[in-house]
């Protein structure tokens, strides 16, 4: 059952074995696994419930429907835009379907440096296998590589850079290109069309428009979750109360620690809300002479990993990924205003982008902000990361030119820097400084990190709180460090593992 609480109005009072907060890559998986095993499950999702039929392929209608704060969530200094899903299915509804397992060296790093005994590649295998089967993960076929991605590959190969065509979770893709606005065709195997209906079919009660605002715990463990029925403008339409023995917190690495801290739950390590990594990214636009229609086809299928070597250094590096946009997003990328800006927009069909995504060591924090649902996000790039991002920008420009772009538009504010082919790339900034370049994040993580030592971590290797019995975290919050790769499959696999742990321990947890 999936119910839109705003349509009914009024209050909700529920009781279940498990209350799952959030329905994205972590929450949906946990809910489905637990419900399928016979546990009674209630899912609270603060965002609305949309279906494929609601995805209109229009930016003005879809971007606000699918994003937290309508895409306007920012770090406290306004320097980084943080894009997270706010709907049933979470960010998997708008993501671009890269399907990577946790890099092996990162698994090893987390086990060895964070005391996660038994956290091995072999131990994770069953969860990866289940998740990949349910999401229908497969290699992207050669004929599915879009013209932009092909050109980027050509550019990378000319320069001798390492890269590869990735795997994805799409089925019968029609290559329309609207992945980021929600898939009208049901081809994207997001949580919305996989684990969420699977959970509902197994008996989970999934409530949209239900914002969790407080988790109550007593000595023996969690007792209930309180919240409100809310709309997109934050107006309250009713109250929510769910009594449960176990709570799975899967609201994302910003909202999960916010809820934890607002609830006044035990935080003996002081680590809840800390260690925030963002995978900050910066985009460089390329302009080709011929029409590319980069916004059509699978947006991201090629991946340049030349500048990250996790075996050698699991703490640092960056990757390059193609990116494209529809008119509004493209307009925002280009410099200036008025006729000068429009002259560039006339090249719209020949524009394609390449972004640098940083495996960041910079660490920020999330603290409760001005009110419910308004957490404050603090993050500052270290000098090392600022230089690495700038280095990545230079490599983006290099690859775009090698791929045949006539000019590139580098991300500097207030107006990006335009370079023609043959121009000196030395004109590009030597550091990416907050406030002087648009920086985005789609992968906030690590704010409730896993670890073997309760003094330095929040949850154990299965996502269970060291201090609050019955409370699990099943989202990107649990990553001990930056992941250094697209996180969808890791998040889902760790949530699967948490669910299996809950089931194995159920007699004890229910006691």
């Amino acid at each position, binding site marked *: 059952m999936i119910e839109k609480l705003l349509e009914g109005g009024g209050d909700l009072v529920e009781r279940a074995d498990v209350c799952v907060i959030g329905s994205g890559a972590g929450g949906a998986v946990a809910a489905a696994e637990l419900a399928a095993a016979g546990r009674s499950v209630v899912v609270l999702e603060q965002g609305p419930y949309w279906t494929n039929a609601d995805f209109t392929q229009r930016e003005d209608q879809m971007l606000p429907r699918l994003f937290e704060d*309508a895409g306007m969530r920012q770090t406290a200094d306004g320097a980084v835009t943080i894009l997270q899903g706010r709907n049933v299915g979470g960010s998997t509804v708008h993501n671009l379907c890269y399907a990577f397992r946790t890099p092996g060296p990162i698994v090893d790093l987390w086990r060895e440096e964070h005391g996660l005994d038994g956290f091995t590649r072999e131990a994770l295998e069953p969860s990866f296998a289940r998740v990949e089967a349910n999401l229908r993960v497969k290699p992207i076929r050669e004929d599915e590589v879009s013209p932009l991605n092909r050109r980027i590959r050509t550019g990378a190969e000319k320069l001798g850079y390492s890269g590869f065509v990735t795997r994805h979770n799409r089925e019968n893709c029609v290559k329309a290109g609207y992945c980021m606005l929600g898939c009208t065709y049901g081809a994207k195997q997001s949580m919305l069309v996989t684990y969420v209906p699977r959970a509902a079919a197994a008996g989970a009660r999934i409530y949209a428009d239900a914002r969790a605002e407080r988790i109550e715990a007593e000595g023996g463990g969690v007792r209930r979750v309180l919240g409100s029925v809310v709309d997109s403008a934050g107006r309250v339409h009713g109250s929510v109360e769910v009594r449960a023995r176990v709570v799975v917190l899967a609201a994302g690495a910003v909202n999960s620690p916010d809820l934890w801290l607002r609830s006044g739950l035990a935080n003996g390590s002081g680590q809840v809300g800390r260690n925030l990594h963002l995978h900050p990214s910066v985009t460089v636009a390329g302009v080709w002479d011929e029409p590319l229609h980069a916004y059509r086809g699978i947006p991201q299928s090629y991946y340049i990993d030349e500048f990250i070597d996790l075996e050698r250094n699991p703490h640092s590096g960056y990757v390059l990924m193609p990116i494209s946009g529809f008119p509004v997003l493209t307009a925002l990328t280009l410099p200036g205003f008025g006729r000068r800006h*429009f002259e560039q927009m006339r090249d719209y069909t020949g524009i394609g982008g390449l972004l640098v995504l940083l495996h960041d060591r910079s660490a920020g924090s999330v603290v409760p902000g001005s*009110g419910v649902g308004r957490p404050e996000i603090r993050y500052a790039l270290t000098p090392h990361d600022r230089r690495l991002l700038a280095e990545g920008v230079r490599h983006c420009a290099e690859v775009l030119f090698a791929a045949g772009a006539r000019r590139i538009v580098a991300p500097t*504010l207030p107006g990006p820097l335009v370079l023609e082919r043959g121009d000196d790339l030395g004109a590009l900034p030597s550091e990416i400084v907050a406030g002087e370049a648009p920086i985005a994040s789609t992968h906030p993580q690590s704010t409730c990190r896993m670890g073997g030592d309760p003094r330095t971590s929040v949850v154990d290797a299965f996502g269970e709180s060291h201090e609050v019995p019955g409370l699990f975290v099943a989202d990107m919050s649990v990553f001990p460090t930056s992941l250094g790769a697209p996180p969808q499959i890791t998040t889902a696999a760790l949530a699967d593992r948490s669910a299996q742990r809950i089931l194995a321990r159920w007699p004890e947890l229910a006691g």
Partner: protein
Amino acid sequence: MRLRRTARAPRATATSYPSATRRGFLRLVGSTATLATLAQLRALPAAAAARVEGAARFFNTTETEILRQVMERMVDTGLADAPRVRDTRAVASVDALCAGLDPRATDLLPLLLRAFEYGPILFDLRFSRFTRLSDAEQDESLAGWMKSRIGLRRTAFLAMRNLCFVGWYSQQETWPLIGYEGPLLGKEPPA
């Protein structure tokens, strides 16, 4: 087990409105400047389609006119036969967008519009408001914001610019100008 579901009338959310502090201003510009980072070719905001219908609901009449004139210059094409902002629902679209968002994310936008209106007086020593200037003078005023040595002013420009682009390039009348074919709904997909 569901225990109870009771009907109740909606109530206003308990919202604390921030004052016009530097931080509040940063949040505001951050908001629309999100849109900038959407310069990252990623996401941004808006409101439900149904809300685009009807008269201004977020901005008052004066603010709506300031927004329209600022937008006319921000998206000027220089083409005689191109649509103008006033021919489209671009302003109504921005209004609907703002009306549909959490007030804590948009409450300083009217102030920002007033700042643009009085910008020529405050910064350019002109004795005229923005909406009373010629097209060329308005462009000059906007360029002053864009190139200002004051970072906050540049950020404000970016916020306003992005808001205008959101409104303008979501209008289907603008798509033929740049070669975008529009949504494929109801059409044969490329595959």
